């Protein structure tokens, strides 16, 4: 049976030194302190029992039933219960500041496949611009017959569609390329969200301006401080690209590009340019900063892949996970999320022994093109340790790869597009740890 052991001391110290090189000053000292403490003995997650709540339990009448509650429109725009702790969270040592940074969706706390708008992961390159929709314009120009400028009112006159699609940052899981780092599914997989988006097909807007035959590329540019820009090939623009103003039934949140953004289903989130102000049609790509210096994948031979747009098939178990350890023996429904930038999820398998044997899981609820798909496996847990994994297969037949397969081909420095099978180590106590099998 599987032998479970911790990394050797020299190996751990080497890993620490490698990681610490990227950190300076206090970050680095705190990091090393934490790491060295870890060498002495692995800390465990403490499960503190909940405060005694007996006065409200039967046969007593609950306290909140003994007086009138809040009335209508006390909170005209509602919010979650004060007992919920639903939050986007970030890893502060990852970036230099909060304006050019990222936060993650709490996948461990969510149900179904829709991400509430307030919990959609954030990624900014120059903070959130405070765009006044009355004064916002989208210009479409370049190799077109009729360059146009559109107000938000104009945009809403076009025929609209609503579609459920995921958005994933290509750096999702990027902190795990060289080794397991994050004891939380929010940090290993939370650069991922799925919403219903409403807007106009980009192909409709392109028909409006009349693209000239030599127009093969589109530059999409945001109205943020970074003027975020990406080159989009015409084929994708005419396939399933949208220009959206609606998100989960209301206007886009400022964090997601209010009042209007591009949405390229299944492609790395960075290409879905937010606060969209300009689309220029040209005959070749622009090779801007976010498609050369960043969002290119460094390979072990020192060369780099560019235009790595598609988010390949991926999956992760969200219950249990480090934030949601097992608290009960007996019946257990394992749940997780699967997604593919190439279409629908066809199947998901679950392994309890680190990938030696697999069982087919059930797909729950809606199974949509380029959307999060929830899977489930009903089982029993009676205190046995597990190396729990999920493996998704999409409708193209692509099977989510192992970490070893990815590393053998891509090394450890490509940052982006780590979609390998993820492993949770469930201990006899029901604690869940992030581990990697090498």
């Amino acid at each position, binding site marked *: 049976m599987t032998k479970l052991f911790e990394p050797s001391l020299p190996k*751990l110290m080497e890993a620490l030194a490698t990681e610490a090189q990227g*950190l300076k000053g206090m970050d680095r000292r705190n990091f090393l302190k934490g790491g060295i403490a870890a060498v002495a003995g692995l800390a465990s997650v403490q499960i503190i029992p909940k405060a005694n709540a007996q006065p409200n339990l039967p046969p007593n009448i609950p306290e909140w039933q003994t007086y009138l509650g809040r009335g209508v429109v006390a909170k005209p725009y509602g919010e979650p219960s004060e007992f919920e702790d639903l939050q986007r969270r970030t890893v502060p040592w990852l970036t230099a500041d909060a304006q050019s940074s990222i936060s993650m969706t709490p996948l461990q706390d969510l149900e179904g496949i829709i991400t509430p708008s307030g919990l959609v992961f954030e990624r900014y390159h120059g903070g959130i611009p405070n765009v006044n929709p009355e004064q916002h314009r989208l210009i479409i120009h370049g190799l077109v017959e009729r360059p146009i400028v559109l107000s938000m009112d104009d945009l809403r006159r076009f025929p609209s569609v609503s579609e459920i699609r995921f958005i994933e940052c290509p750096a999702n899981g990027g902190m795990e390329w060289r080794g397991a780092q994050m004891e939380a599914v929010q940090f290993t997989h939370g650069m991922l969200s799925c919403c219903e988006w409403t807007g106009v097909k980009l192909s409709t807007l392109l028909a409006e301006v009349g693209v000239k035959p030599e127009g093969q590329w589109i530059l999409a540019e945001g109205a943020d401080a970074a003027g975020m820009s990406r080159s989009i090939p015409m084929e994708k623009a005419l396939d399933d690209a949208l220009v959206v103003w609606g998100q989960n039934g209301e206007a886009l949140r400022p964090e997601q590009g209010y009042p209007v953004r591009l949405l390229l289903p299944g492609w790395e989130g960075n290409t879905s340019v937010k606060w969209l102000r300009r689309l220029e049609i040209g005959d070749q790509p622009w090779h801007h900063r976010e498609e050369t210096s960043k969002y290119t994948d460094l390979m072990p031979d020192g060369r780099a892949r560019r235009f790595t747009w598609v988010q390949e098939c991926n999956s992760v178990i969200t219950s249990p996970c480090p934030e949601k350890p097992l608290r009960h023996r007996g019946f257990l429904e394992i749940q997780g999320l699967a997604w593919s930038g190439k279409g629908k999820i066809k199947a998901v398998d679950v392994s309890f022994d680190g990938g030696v044997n697999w069982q087919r899981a059930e797909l729950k609820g809606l199974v949509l093109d380029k959307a999060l798909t929830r899977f489930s496996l009903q089982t029993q847990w009676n205190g046995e340790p597990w190396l729990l994994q999920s493996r998704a297969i999409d409708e193209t037949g692509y099977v989510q790869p192992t970490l070893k397969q990815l590393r053998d081909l891509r090394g450890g420095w490509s940052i982006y597009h780590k979609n390998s099978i993820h492993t949770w*180590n469930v201990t006899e106590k029901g604690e869940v740890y992030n581990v990697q099998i090498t």
Partner: protein
Amino acid sequence: MFRSPKSGALTVAFLCFASPALVAGPLGIGETATPEMIAGWDIDIRPDGRGLPPGEGSVADGEGLYEAKCASCHGLFGEGAGRWPILAGGEGTLDTAHPEKTVGSYWPYASTLWDYIHRAMPYPAPQSLTDDEVYAITAYVLYLNDIVEDDFVLNQETFQEVKMPNEPNFYIDDRPDVVNTRCMSQCADASTFEIVTTINGVTPTAHFKEDSGVAANHYGNEAATAEATKVALSDAAVAGKSIYAKACNVCHGAGVAGAPVTGDAAAWSERIAQGMATLNKHAIEGYVGKNGVMPAKGGNMALADEEVANAVAFMVESSQ
């Protein structure tokens, strides 16, 4: 029934209402984008130089501009401060265990540098540089990377001479590159497994504690700032708060480039002792001290002197 003396016209009108024609071509929505509108927003530059405006800048011009507007984050020699991007060096490291991706070692096109500096830099004051300044700073960053000589002058013509060494090493995405199979049993040999755990201490775990009652705040400096702002502020400091958030917090919030962190009384006491006149002068005109560089107006030259002074008042009063 509606009646009209001209029954023929009625029929035509009625048909139009009942069945509006579907338009195959343009819907006629929106206004024509005029050349003037487009010129104001069309700022992109391509590798072939398309989009580069008239103007020029030399390495020598760029040195002073770079030190005043860029060095506080990117370092005097492009070595980077804190977690801000390293701009120079790293040649020959891309296939090693510690690849360093810089303008010189990694970026495939010089046009990207001009485009990005122009659209997004300096970080707190994007699109504030003149075209000549962008040419000069671009030339200087290329010089820091040994791509041009110290007498180089960058303009539309000389741009065509610049070749980035790493250009040939990019290739189009060739995924799918891994082929896994859907094996269901005895797919791996468990006796060969090595299970590697995480390095403790790097995951933010404040929110794991139950009943803490406190929202996880991952930005300790923001907490310090919030605490500091509880003191009564002068009118100038109140006016300066939003300027601070816009132009100063980038460095003074996190202590980048030797900047004293707002709310850190120890770091500020020596500075406050120099008097407000000196602090304002340094903030407005720029200052090179033993700990780091204060760019003039934080690199945001659009700010009025009074606005900068108000922001200084906010920082000082929040740090006593």
